[in-house]
């Protein structure tokens, strides 16, 4: 895999030439033709009209260019022509499903409906699902403009459907908010079982709903003191009309001028009594006992505290009565307002003494629209699929919050977007995870670690030129490749800038999320697999060496061979094959390159070295079945992984070889692995018979990421792992074994191997460039 910041990447030179000071703005305020994307293929609509914001949801199909690999038909041909690639690549169109969500101010609703009507050509749908308080008000307008019948859906049902959907499908959807701590947002890893939970929706009033299963939920209580009380009472007290302005006032006010505090009643004695003098004894208590004018700011602040405390207290009482400790807060009172998230969090912590957790949702504003959409799409069974947030097509959290981004243009006129791709196959946990509920894929949380964040963001910026060049080079026949590549550069550069200012925009910021975002952006501009040709060449070259490498290994005695196999696995990881200098050497003498790579490796003892333990283990009985996650194409998989697989097979261990479903950098994809295996089988009887007898199985991971999230893997893989009783997991490469899963605890033996090709990271881990990680772990009995 070609890593940003690996030692060859520095050659890329200056980066981000296309960036400018206002780039952040552009990513947020989009010209209309970028807002309602793919409308031509829109199949189904839903709309959620709230008090001030409209959320439109639609389902469309997206045409993607994908690189397909296909084995040549070798029959009757001389297969060993020297310069022939091992397989052919063709670019094809593929159709995938995508959910689009757009959020905009109600004032734009007519213009937006007009726009939609003009672009709506292919839809067969006759109805639009509508929810939210404004659905009634705009019913006629929608029906007239879109010529669709409005189907009204229950607000709360939609909300909960939407909530279940995002909790299940969007990693890092929920977060806790801690003002004055760094980071302010702490994202939760997705719990495998989201139920039961409490949803406290703070709209004009408060609804408290207990959600027990996908279809079962119950309104257990509520309160009339909610957002409408803050707004209505606030407007009366301060003559300020807008909700946002009231919150602004509140954030500047001092409630102690209006509220009667404990210290106002006890005097100074509260200290000796161990009472906290600043607790509020009576909200607005001072406005009853003193003849004075109160400032708008102070009254607004007092009101905010009063309402937030009250809601928090009731939420705790309900949570306690129903023995629940997870409470999600939503509704316009909360939506994107750090001020209210802060007061609610404080209140919950106070009243529950930390036993209840106040959780907020990144896509809280979309719940109603998502739910309404799902209601209308029930016949398509959207819940049977797994979905993934498309980072390229989604605005981040708080992207339109004036409180966090005061320099950005006013809130009105900004459109917030969310896009979700339907994944071809459902994703599930790896059954071998020791504790799925506490599994965190990522090793370093860049939202937490400011130094690491700076480093990696800069790394990715510096690598951008190289990625752009690679993208253009991958499509030599395309006339607009340069133009699209430039658009890609702009988009990804903007994402990186957003993340510099708002690291929390897409959940916990990690090296993985930065890589995934880049892949999403590349796909967006139809560069589905920039490395396809590189991989093709690398695979061809490596295949030619396979037999030589295997014979050399077979000539070694057992113990030497084991070390050589492990070194072979690691060697494939050494070089950045995207770098020209290296590939030149390889092309002229691949054998030499492979040997060179091995020499580059750190001598034992390695940085992390449990090889002796592993060797000892190998002297024991064979594993039943090994699950191997492969990394790069070419030398890595062919000369590193396959010989290792071959040895395992010879020991009587079955092997499941898992490769990515979709392309990511130069990682080997599932379809490539099939061809590679076929070619190797043609040369090697061990592999041949293992494939035939299904002792070697090739599967896809369900992922298109250079990293590995063991909680989102292809269901087929999980089933196979269970069926075959896998008792060894091998994860190789920096992306899968260091940036992610370094700390992953499994309930079977595991082997994590990588070469640290980044000096900064190596230093962090206490080693040097090309330090070797060889982590063999056996779960405690």
């Amino acid at each position: 895999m070609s890593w940003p910041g690996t030692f060859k990447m520095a050659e890329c030179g200056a980066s981000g030439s296309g960036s400018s000071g206002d780039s952040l703005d552009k990513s947020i305020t989009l010209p209309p033709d970028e807002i309602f994307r793919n409308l031509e293929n829109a199949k189904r609509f839903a709309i959620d009209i709230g008090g001030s914001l409209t959320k439109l949801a639609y389902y469309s199909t997206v045409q993607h260019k994908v690189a397909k690999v296909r084995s040549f038909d070798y029959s009757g041909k001389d297969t060993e022509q020297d310069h022939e690639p091992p397989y052919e690549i063709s670019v094809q169109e593929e159709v995938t499903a995508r959910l689009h969500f757009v959020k905009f101010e109600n004032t734009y609703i007519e213009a937006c409906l007009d726009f939609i009507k003009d672009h709506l050509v292919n839809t067969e749908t006759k109805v639009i699902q509508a929810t939210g308080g404004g659905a009634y008000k705009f019913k006629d307008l929608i029906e007239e403009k879109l010529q669709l019948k409005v189907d009204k859906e229950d607000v709360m049902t939609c909300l909960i459907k939407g909530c279940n959907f995002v909790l299940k499908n969007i990693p890092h959807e929920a977060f806790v908010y801690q003002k004055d701590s760094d980071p302010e947002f702490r994202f939760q890893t997705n719990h495998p079982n989201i139920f039961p939970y409490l949803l406290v929706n703070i709209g004009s009033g408060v609804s408290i709903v207990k959600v027990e299963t996908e279809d079962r939920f119950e309104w257990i209580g509520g309160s009339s003191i909610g957002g409408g009380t803050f707004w209505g009472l606030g407007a009366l007290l301060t003559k300020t009309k807008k909700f946002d302005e009231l919150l602004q006032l509140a954030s500047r006010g001092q409630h102690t001028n209006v509220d009667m505090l404990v210290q106002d009643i006890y005097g100074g004695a509260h200290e000796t009594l161990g009472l906290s003098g600043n607790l509020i004894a009576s909200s607005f208590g001072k406005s009853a006992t003193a003849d004075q004018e109160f400032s708008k700011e102070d009254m607004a602040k007092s009101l905010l505290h009063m309402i937030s405390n009250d809601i928090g207290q009731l939420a705790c009482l309900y949570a306690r009565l129903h023995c629940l400790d997870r409470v999600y807060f939503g509704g316009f009172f909360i939506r994107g307002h750090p001020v209210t998230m802060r007061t609610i969090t404080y209140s919950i912590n106070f009243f529950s003494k930390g036993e209840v957790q106040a959780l907020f949702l990144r896509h809280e504003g979309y719940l109603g629209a998502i739910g309404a959409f799902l209601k209308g799409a029930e016949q398509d069974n959207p819940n049977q699929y797994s979905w993934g947030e498309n980072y390229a097509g989604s605005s981040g959290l708080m992207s339109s919050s004036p409180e966090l981004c005061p320099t950005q243009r006013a809130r009105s006129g900004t459109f917030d977007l969310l896009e979700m791709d339907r994944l071809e196959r459902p994703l599930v946990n790896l059954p071998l995870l020791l504790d799925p509920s506490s599994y965190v894929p990522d090793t370093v949380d860049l939202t937490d670690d400011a130094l690491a964040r700076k480093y990696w963001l800069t790394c990715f910026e510096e690598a951008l030129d190289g990625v752009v060049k690679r993208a253009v080079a991958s499509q030599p026949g395309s006339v607009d490749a340069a133009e699209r590549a430039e658009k890609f550069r702009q988009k990804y550069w903007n994402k990186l800038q957003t993340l510099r200012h708002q690291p929390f925009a897409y959940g916990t910021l990690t090296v993985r999320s930065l890589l995934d975002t880049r892949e999403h952006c590349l796909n967006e501009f139809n560069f589905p697999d920039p490395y396809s040709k590189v991989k093709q060449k690398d695979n061809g070259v490596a295949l030619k060496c396979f037999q030589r490498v295997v014979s050399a290994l077979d000539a070694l005695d057992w113990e030497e061979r084991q070390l050589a196999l492990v070194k072979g696995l690691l060697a494939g990881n050494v070089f950045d094959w995207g770098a020209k200098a290296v590939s030149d050497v390889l092309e002229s003498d691949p054998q030499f390159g492979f040997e060179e790579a091995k020499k580059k490796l750190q001598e034992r003892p390695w940085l992390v070295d449990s090889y002796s333990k592993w060797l000892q283990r190998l002297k024991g009985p064979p594993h039943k079945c090994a699950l191997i996650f492969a990394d790069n194409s070419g030398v890595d998989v062919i000369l590193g992984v396959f010989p290792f697989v071959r040895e395992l097979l010879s020991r009587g261990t079955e092997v499941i070889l898992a490769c990515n479903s979709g392309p990511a950098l130069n990682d080997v994809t599932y379809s490539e692995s099939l061809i590679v295996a076929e070619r190797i089988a043609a040369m090697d009887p061990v592999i041949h018979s293992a494939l035939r007898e299904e002792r070697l199985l090739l599967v896809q991971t369900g992922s298109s990421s250079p990293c590995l999230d063991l909680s989102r893997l292809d269901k087929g893989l999980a089933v196979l792992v269970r069926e075959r009783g896998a008792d060894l997991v091998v994860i190789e490469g920096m992306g899968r074994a260091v940036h992610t899963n370094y700390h992953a605890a499994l309930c079977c033996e595991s082997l994590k191997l990588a070469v640290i090709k980044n000096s900064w990271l190596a230093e962090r881990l206490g080693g040097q460039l090309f330090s070797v990680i060889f982590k063999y772990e056996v779960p405690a009995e």
Partner: protein
Amino acid sequence: MGAGWLAAPMERHGRAAATSASSAWEPVPGGPDGRRREPLRRRANSASAPAVGASASASASPSAEGVRRDRPGSYSGATSASRQRVESLRKKRPLFPWFGLDIGGTLVKLVYFEPKDITAEEEEEEVESLKSIRKYLTSNVAYGSTGIRDVHLELKDLTLCGRKGNLHFIRFPTHDMPAFIQMGRDKNFSSLHTVFCATGGGAYKFEQDFLTIGDLQLCKLDELDCLIKGILYIDSVGFNGRSQCYYFENPADSEKCQKLPFDLKNPYPLLLVNIGSGVSILAVYSKDNYKRVTGTSLGGGTFFGLCCLLTGCTTFEEALEMASRGDSTKVDKLVRDIYGGDYERFGLPGWAVASSFGNMMSKEKREAVSKEDLARATLITITNNIGSIARMCALNENINQVVFVGNFLRINTIAMRLLAYALDYWSKGQLKALFSEHEGYFGAVGALLELLKIP
């Protein structure tokens, strides 16, 4: 004593506040200094004390949060000097005058025992200042412009420590406390060697003033201890032959609504909701076994404070009077305003308030409401909220009788009937709201009992 001891400094304070301060501790996210504040150590809210088992056993540690305290008065906070004096009083009756004082955030509640069995001999010996206090308090119903004796609450022919007499109930705003202390100094109270047993936050706040200005040593007492003691005592002596405790039948029906006596013969367990400036909620399991469950800062002070801001009223009575003439449905958004009727999906009746002040989001509707409507809405909002929190506490504590006390309920039938109705409706008849005639005076009574060492 003549011209009213509360006269002088009071003209400046136009607003006679009417609610007592029970201390309702509420959190404030980081104050000006940005530090996180610790919840109360002693009387911390126990809103989420370990879920169901909370009522199972009393902890031995008196300092533990939210744990029931088994020894009332053990934390009186009295100085050792006054403690000694109290100790010595145990042997013989304390000297007259007998006062119990409860200094809240808004109101001071004073109970005074007037001995009616004074012998001629005694009267002769009675020092002049003592006599003048007795005469002054018992012959007036108002003191200065803000001190009021609630004559209708007077308890007649009470026997306390072997003495027969009447118990008087007097209140005045806390901001007149300096005048009260000054009066004590002017009248040379300290020469009477009397002990002032005082509870409420003001006992602490004004302790130094009592000492330096009035030369009076306060015996400070825990307010929740006093509250419980007072309630149990007053309930036991009844109300001049009538029942102290009562409830409402058909509270929602103006025609059929009836206030009926309630015999609190099985008082335990009991949820006690004290609504002063703020609200404290206690679970009482026996005479000296109780815990503070939680509290809310949305109390009487909030109702009156918001009314002052919204309507410009200046007294609690005025606020209530306005509320009685207003229509809260013009201010509040009801379920039927949103759903056109009942929200059947969730079993919500159309008349329920969906959003308090929710209609006030609209400019047109803001312009269409009267001050009376706003006062009414404020009253309904605060009352409903207290009812809702009380109901949740009762469910969590598994208690089904809820006694509401505190001066917020004084002359406040609207609130009482609403509490009665709300509790009954939302609990489907499982919970009963009870009230008590002496509403806000229990703390002061408890302080008096402490003085007399009546257990």
